[in-house]
């Protein structure tokens, strides 16, 4: 499960306004950066558009329509109030753009767009890390590579995010295995796949065991032999 899956899972809740206030802000923030979610949410809102009409109409008290019309028309609209400022901004913008070559602008826009996408992905991750109450990390040295394991909680989704970076691909017939350490023992979580150029990122639910999770571990395990306890070399062992 990736952090984006949480957004996919909660699109309906966002449209219904059923998210908690902090989740709602997080989701709204994400919509500004994720075209897919923005499109899906807009589609859902459009299709559900008539739903509020499930509630029967109310008879307005006498004179209400006139009062509403008077109140709306008496008040200058925002664009009338902001018109002088907007006009000045438009002049400055037009003057600035006039000095630019069209081709240079296109190239700059393309580069900016690419950076925006990268930045958006980074912001998604950072927005989660910023809210995290627990962040733990451990350096890992392995076969001449220096990498590490970073684990941080997401208090909004109540999940743990795990990043493994800088390590080579797991040896043949082996996998990197992430474990939770609980009072009752080690609990197998996700397998992580990465190479030295591509970090692994996973979002995992808390294990379904009684009591708190005390820590986590990373081992190298045989790919086809899923033992309940770690059997391969321990690469990282962290306490929460």
């Amino acid at each position: 499960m990736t952090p984006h899956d949480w957004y996919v899972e909660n699109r309906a809740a966002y449209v219904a306004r059923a998210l908690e206030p902090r989740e709602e802000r997080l989701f709204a923030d994400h919509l500004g950066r994720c075209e897919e979610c923005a499109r899906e949410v807009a589609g859902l809102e459009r299709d559900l558009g008539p739903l509020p009409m499930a509630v029967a109409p109310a008879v307005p008290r006498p004179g209400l329509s006139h009062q509403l019309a008077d109140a709306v028309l008496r008040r200058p609209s925002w664009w009338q109030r902001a018109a002088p400022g907007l006009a000045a901004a438009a002049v400055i913008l037009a003057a600035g753009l006039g000095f630019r070559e069209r081709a240079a602008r296109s190239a700059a826009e393309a580069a900016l767009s690419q950076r925006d996408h990268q930045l958006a992905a980074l912001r998604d991750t950072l927005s989660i890390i910023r809210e995290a109450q627990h962040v733990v990390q451990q350096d890992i040295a392995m076969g001449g590579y220096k990498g590490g394991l970073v684990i941080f909680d997401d208090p909004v989704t109540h999940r743990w995010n795990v990043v493994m970076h800088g390590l080579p691909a797991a040896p043949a017939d082996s996998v990197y295995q992430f474990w939770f350490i609980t009072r009752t023992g080690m609990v197998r979580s996700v397998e992580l796949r990465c190479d030295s150029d591509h970090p692994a990122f996973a979002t995992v639910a808390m294990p379904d065991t009684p009591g708190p999770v005390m820590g986590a571990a990373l081992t190298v395990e045989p790919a086809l032999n899923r033992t309940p306890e770690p059997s391969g070399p321990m690469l990282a062992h962290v306490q929460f």
Partner: protein
Amino acid sequence: MSPPPPRSSRPSAGAGSAPVPLALAGQASLRARLVARDERALVELIETATPWLLGLVQSMLRDQDEAEEVVLEVFRIAWDRAASLGGEHEGLMPWLLRIARNRAIDRLRRRSRWRRKVERAEALGGVDSGTVQFREPDESAHPGWHVHESVHSALGALPEEQQAVVRLAYFGGLTHSEIARKLGIPMGTVKTRLRLAFDKLRVTLAPIQDWVR
């Protein structure tokens, strides 16, 4: 919770023929006239939409004065943003209703006394597992009634447990953790029920055309 009560047996405004959009033939649409900042169009919109907006907001807030304030805010927004209406793919009424519902939910959440109010209303038996009452006024000749009937039927066709979640979330402004507590079910179940309900509703509601053009 029982499903929404059956609608009036009286014929709806559009019964027997295709519903007639509010804009008259040969006349520029209400939307186009609003974009052109025609004040008479605003008055027409207010007269047409107020009963529906008021019905929705009043049933959510249970306070007539506050509901009227929200309706005024909605029309102010509509008038302020009239210029951008031309490019909108969304129907005019759904757009107004969405703003109204969001404003009502914002107010519900600002109310520190909201929870006590719900508890009081529940104690009086005024609220079932939903917070909105889908009343049965004698308004079958009201413009837009045919849409109300279709939407009401679509909602009533959902399994009861899904209806309850939709009412509490969509019309009641409760968050999924509040709904989970209220119904005594896991939060994951709330999310699943809401998603299933919306999947069904978007299929049944999508073909409904906005009746204000």
